């Protein structure tokens, strides 16, 4: 089980970083930390994805000196996927930060528990 950890260390680091990001997003009470956690998670996934496409001994898929044979370059598809992934995670982070700003303007705190308590008190009046 542990033996093949040594040569696919990309995937291993990716999963570990994913775990860290996931727990921060899930458990941390501070909103900004949650956003940071989310970005941890996404970047880990993109690392995992990008490392999928790498074939050792080949160059990045940018045409150089007219060589068009596919064997010369690494597999470009995962890289394409990473691009879409990054687009998605950037837009979500923007949305999340917008929400955090609106909450801060209203409740002047970033702690999720306080915000929930304040909103409930506000609803009672």
């Amino acid at each position, binding site marked *: 089980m542990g033996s093949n950890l040594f040569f696919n260390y990309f995937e291993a680091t990716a999963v570990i970083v994913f775990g860290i990001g996931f727990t921060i997003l899930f458990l941390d009470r501070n909103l900004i930390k949650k956003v940071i956690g*989310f970005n941890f998670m996404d970047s880990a996934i993109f690392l995992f994805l990008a490392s*999928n496409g790498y074939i050792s001994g080949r160059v990045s898929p940018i045409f150089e000196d007219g060589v068009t044979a596919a064997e010369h370059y690494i597999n470009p598809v995962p890289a394409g996927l990473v691009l879409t992934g990054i687009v998605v995670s950037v837009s979500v982070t923007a*949305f999340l930060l917008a929400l955090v700003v609106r909450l801060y303007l209203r409740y002047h705190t970033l702690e999720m528990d306080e915000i929930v308590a304040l909103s409930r008190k506000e609803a009672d009046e």
Partner: protein
Amino acid sequence: MNLVQNFPFFCIMLYLAGGVTCCVLTPKASRAVCIGLNLLVTALMAAALAFTVRSGESYVYLMGHFPAPWGNEIRIGPLETLMGTAFPLVMTLTLLGGMDHIFEDVEEDKINLYFTVVNLLMVSMLALVLTNDIFTGYVFVEINTIASCALVMLKYKSGKALVATTRYLIMSLLGSGLFLIGIIILYNITGHLLMEPMREKIHELYLSGNYAFPLTVTVGLFAVGLSLKSALWPFSAWLPDAHASATAASSGILSGLVIKSYMILLLKIFYRVLGMEVVLSTGVLNVLFVFGIGAMLFGSLHALQERDIKRMLAYSSVAQAGYIFAGFGLGTAEGVLAGCIQILVHAVTKPMLFSAAGGFMTVSGGSRQFSDLHGAGRRDILSGIAFTVGALSMIGIPLFAGFATKLVLTRASLATAGWKCVAALSAIVLSTVLNALYYIPAVALLFDKREAVHISGVKAQPSAVYVLSLTVFMALNFFVGLRSSLLTCILEAGLNVFS
């Protein structure tokens, strides 16, 4: 390749175009565009449905003529087109039902953004139902998340909506994160993103036995990720706040349609990508089944204690989601059929209940507490009747839509032997009683003579649109209740050719 076959593709493109144009139009114009678009898509998808039902098999539709594995595909079968027709139809009716509330709750200059978000939501839902490529599925899952969070947030000056949206967004992101890493691991193993080739690869791996552990992990990731997004019971903490604090139309859309699209995606992954025998071997279905039964009971128990009508309906959505997952969890074809029928039944009933609740709020001074809603059914008689019809269908009284699910789910659970059958039957009996215990007193309270003192005498003047939407909803409800045999055979045909 006659013309009808590319209608689904047209619909997706139409919605995208609609979404873009709406954000520059005036509120009235964007409303007209959105409603018109939805009706048009319903018609197109109905034509596609007629075609696929007549031909009886599902065809693959290449987008941009790039062959696999580069190009992108969508796959259209009877089940997908049926869902495709139902979703826009219900969307139109919910929007019409909640139109007055939209124009009240959302700020003046933001209304056209509301309709933009609605169009984006429809794009993502249609894509999720139709897509044959798993990564495209992920992209549209994300679009769906953002759009639905925006729907909840667009409530004028309501702190609670903001908090609910944040919590909803965070939980959804967790779900989609798990879903994404699941896709990546699968891509890592099989090297494909289109569903059919992945299927052969996984089948070989399953037979050869290697990569067994990663396969189980991926199945677990998909199941947890998507059930988290579709508010299955242990992960449903975010649903009541989100659905209750949104405007009437949004909560109808959210609980009626949005959580359903994720379930269909999960079903597609189980059927088309992993294949049923792999899923059964990992035993994840039993976990889903237990969570489904838990949802049916605890959802209703929470609803029993609620004193706020919209939160009660939200908890009832959690319970009804439990029916669907219990259906899927049975593991047999008939169980999945029961789940699909419940998807349609709940899509038809819950938005009607939320619009009626909206109607009650207008005649009760905007309050959602039951103590103020005494006699609201009397003051706004149409919503009263609609609410009663919805409540009876939720309980599962014959002639109403809910009975169809109860019938098929009981038959499905009887087919499975052992503890699953006993658990399912007792859960059905218990949840029927629990539903009756909180819906019928609610109806009785709504028709109660003694009204709260400061509200009595306010007679409702519902707008023509509202009356139209509720009547069509009720007619749809009775149609599903009476002609459920028609729906069942379409869904059966769809499921046969689904994988």
